[in-house]
């Protein structure tokens, strides 16, 4: 007995060490990407310039470029990546299916539809965040209704979500043709998922929403982990599964909606980040903090690459994540068939 205990304890401490190592590596990666992101580009700034811009001592031009453009963009990438990683982790855990992420089953597309309706039909000047939240939540309701009749962890739900995504994509394309030209030009970029237009206001919205929603996740964290053991076990532990499930879905949908409102539908981060985190950290379940950190780091790196790979051409980061993420999803499907 004591031997098993000590083995279990050692395994746990090994896992902890591995997680800590992965977290340190992710932070190092994100930091290096941030350094590349702030210093290079069409306007070169040395590390010293960036440091003095951050503390308010640089000349006007450097301050405008670094503080006005690059830093908000990096912060937005980190926050959006974290939000998507978290949302993916919650949905994948609830559905017990790595494919059940918001970008595959239509929540991202639904948020985009909501944001477009808000931008084009309701209030062209207001922030589309409320529209994106509404669109995301409505899509969740529809997918849950489908899942109820089909069985949530089943592949069919995923496929139904894909069909819904196709329908919403057509709606989005249609809305775009109906938009006035100045909005359509921006919305066209936005519809591919782009961080090019992010300002400090967006960062405020992102960090505020991310903070509140993460706090809500922390409150239900214990119940969330209990749900992982299966509904019966969770109920045995005194968890009100229905209510917790609903709370978690709403939190994840709002996370997706917030990210989409600012940057448009960025695909495949929510799909890949939780799986990457789980594999690298070697945990049995999907780690929430690890998923958020992985999502943030991956999106920041993707955005830094998307800005510079074909410079001066700016690739919308959503296209880059679609190229890599599409292949990743393809690989998941092919591998599970073996």
């Amino acid at each position, binding site marked *: 007995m004591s031997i098993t205990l000590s083995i279990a304890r050692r395994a746990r401490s090994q896992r902890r060490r591995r997680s800590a190592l992965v977290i340190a590596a992710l932070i190092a990666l994100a930091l290096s990407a941030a350094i590349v992101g702030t210093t290079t580009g069409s306007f070169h700034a040395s590390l010293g310039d960036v440091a003095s811009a951050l503390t308010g001592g640089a000349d006007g031009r450097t301050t405008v470029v670094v503080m006005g453009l690059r830093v908000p963009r990096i912060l937005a990438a980190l926050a959006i990546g974290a939000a998507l990683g978290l949302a993916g982790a919650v949905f994948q855990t609830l559905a017990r299916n790595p*494919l059940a992420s918001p970008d595959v089953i239509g929540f991202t597309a639904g948020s985009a539809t909501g944001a477009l309706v808000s931008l084009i039909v309701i209030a062209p000047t207001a922030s589309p965040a409320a529209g994106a939240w509404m669109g995301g939540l409505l899509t969740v309701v529809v997918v849950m209704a*489908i899942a109820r*009749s*089909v*069985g949530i962890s*089943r*592949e*069919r739900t*995923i*496929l*139904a979500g*894909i*069909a*819904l995504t*196709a*329908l919403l*994509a*057509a709606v989005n*394309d*249609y809305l775009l*043709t*109906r938009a006035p030209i100045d909005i359509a030009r921006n919305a066209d970029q936005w519809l*591919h998922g782009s961080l090019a237009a992010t300002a400090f206001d967006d960062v405020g919205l992102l960090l505020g929403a991310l903070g509140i929603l993460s706090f809500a996740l922390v409150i239900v964290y214990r119940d969330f982990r209990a749900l992982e053991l299966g509904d019966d076990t969770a109920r045995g532990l005194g968890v009100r599964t229905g209510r917790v499930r609903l709370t978690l879905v709403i939190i994840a949908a709002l996370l997706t909606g917030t990210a989409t409102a600012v940057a448009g539908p960025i*695909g*495949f981060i929510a799909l890949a980040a939780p799986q990457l985190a789980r594999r690298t950290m070697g945990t049995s379940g999907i780690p929430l903090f690890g998923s958020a950190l992985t999502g943030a780091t991956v999106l920041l790196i993707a955005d830094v690459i998307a800005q510079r790979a*074909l410079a001066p*051409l700016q*690739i*919308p980061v*959503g*296209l*880059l994540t*679609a*190229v*890599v*993420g*599409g*292949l990743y*999803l*393809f690989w*998941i*499907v*092919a591998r*599970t*068939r073996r």
Partner: protein
Amino acid sequence: MLSTSAAPAAVVERVHARRRRILRRAIVLTLAVGIALVILVVASLAVGSRALAPSDVFSALFSDRRDAVGVIVHDLRVPRTLTALLTGTCLGVAGVMMQAVTRNPLADPGLLGVNAGAAVGVVVAIAFFGVRTASGYVWFAFAGAAAAALLVNAAARPDRRGNTIALVLAGVALSACLSAVVRIITLADDDTFESFRFWAVGSFERRDPDVAAQLLPFAIVGIVLAVVVARGVDQLRLGADLARSLGVSPTWTILGAGVAITLLCATATSAAGPLAFIGLIVAHIVRGIVGGALRASLPLAALTGAALTLASDVIGRVIAIPSEVEAGIVAAFVGAPLLLWLVVRRAS
């Protein structure tokens, strides 16, 4: 004892009666689709940002006057209509072929990523090899479509449970990746792709007038090949051994069907961009009318595909005047709910 000899006769009679009924229905519906197609062609020539009276269309069509109406009809509407007809025919035939070969009721040239592969071929040909003619880049489209079809097929071989979903998942994943590649290339080469901005979502607007003529030979080869292998595909459904005993070579049949599908998808995508859902819709309409036999479905599939594609284009021109909605978007408005319904219904 009497019943043993009587029963087969009755069964044979029933089978014959059923076959006659299907044939009658198929003929009636083929005629109906044919009439609809004629009406759609007239509508397609008349409707647009400048609406023309059918009488003007006819008088312009059968004279070579070069006034405004003549120019619109001859230089814009006729080529556009022909391109839509060609594309729709290819997609309809490719759709039923695909469903017959994969035995998957969700198969579709767009959903399985074959059209996206063809689209990558087209933009690569235009951007990196400077190919400007449709008859030139259709070869690249063929290579791209073939590569995508092989990849998806290898990734998601149907398993014993007859699980049909992995194939679609793999196709959608590959499609997402390849469409993003297409977007990046078209973004990078803005000038070249100005006229292709709408092509990427499936559109007949602003294409070269002679695209249909350039692509016609490829479509014909694809359709002839489809007709040739159709019987073999039908017999393969009885199992490879039985098919072999009927003189069908499974390898050659599948290969021939694959080449036909790829060629048709490449032609359609070269003409109109990656159009999804037309094949899916056609296959389900045709199956509802003539049943599962591929050989019997081909004529109706060709007609229905042409009619649906032309209808999508005409509707897209009408619903958003003065701008247009691309045919691909209109098709998705019908096709995506159909896919959703198929998925949910088959589950319950």
